[in-house]
């Protein structure tokens, strides 16, 4: 159905009908989606080194959902630092491992940064976290860890 020559075999009317569906699909894009997509560019940085996603439980269970109420767990690593995160409903808990964390900031794409309180063991917790794309920026000793964006 999708050989490169496929379109050449369609009549003009068939092509027009497909074109109509294609153009109609573009009309479904909302202004909010457009504005958010454009605003994403303001997060562009040059040569920023992102932490590696080591683990996301949501990536390991596709297709077999439903019976498991366990919280979602994620972990990120960057040089000497590891960030472990657990998301349970609207509660986020985490721990910075590898160096004593001086700050953990929760970033949202379209809201102000939220500094999180982190204790001497590197633990932090936040309640009432809204859904949407988030990322973490951790400062610990000489290290910085910036996680990739993840939708929660």
């Amino acid at each position, binding site marked *: 159905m999708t050989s490169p020559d496929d379109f050449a075999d369609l009549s003009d009317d068939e092509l027009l009908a497909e*074109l109509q569906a294609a153009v109609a*699909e573009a009309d479904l*894009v909302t202004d909010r989606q457009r504005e958010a*997509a454009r605003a*994403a560019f303001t997060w*562009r940085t040059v040569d920023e080194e992102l932490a590696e996603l080591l683990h996301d439980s949501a990536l390991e269970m596709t297709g077999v959902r*439903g019976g498991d109420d366990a919280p979602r767990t994620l972990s990120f690593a960057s040089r000497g630092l590891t960030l472990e995160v657990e*998301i*349970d409903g609207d509660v986020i808990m985490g721990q910075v491992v590898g160096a004593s964390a001086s700050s953990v900031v929760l970033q949202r794409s379209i809201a102000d940064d939220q500094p999180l309180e982190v204790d001497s063991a590197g633990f932090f917790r936040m309640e009432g976290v809204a859904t949407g794309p988030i990322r973490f920026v951790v400062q610990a000793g000489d290290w910085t860890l910036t996680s990739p964006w993840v939708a*929660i």
Partner: protein
Amino acid sequence: MTESSPLAVLVSQAQDGDQHAWNAIVERFLPLVGAIARQHRLSEADGDDVGQTVWLRLVEHLGDLREPAALPGWIRTTARNECLRLLAARGRTRVVDPQAGGLDTVTDDVSDADLVAAERRQALRDALAGLPDARRELLLLLLVDPPLAYEEISRRLGIPVGSIGPTRARAFAALRESPALRRLAPEPEGGPS
């Protein structure tokens, strides 16, 4: 620089920090991302979150993107993965009624045919955007539902009624010949990340 600029030009300009080039890229692919979110039956809010995540991740990886031709495939793959990821995350935190068995929370994966169809519509939009203005405008008027009379099209475009048929034939020929459609072969996996 317009929406119809070649993708390689837009990607290069966006890599240099050009917001307008970025806007043109997202304008081109927003419908594809939206279509994939709908295919996965995400809620509207979750669909928007997935879309926003795709763009944020593209911003992260823009600097690594060496082959602009791989971008459509990257966007499609990333959108699909982020949909499945968010569905899985939602499944984990959903309260499951044991009486309901929980099976209704399992969503079938979207078929490859659906994704291919979405990419095909993307290629058609790209091909349309790449046509000369006069041909694109005529095709867009031909798409209007209910159809416009040739007299009306003639009036709007300022061309004689008698030339609409031949112009239409040339527009279709140009569309079929467009690089966007001729390139619509299975996308090799690749690109950033």
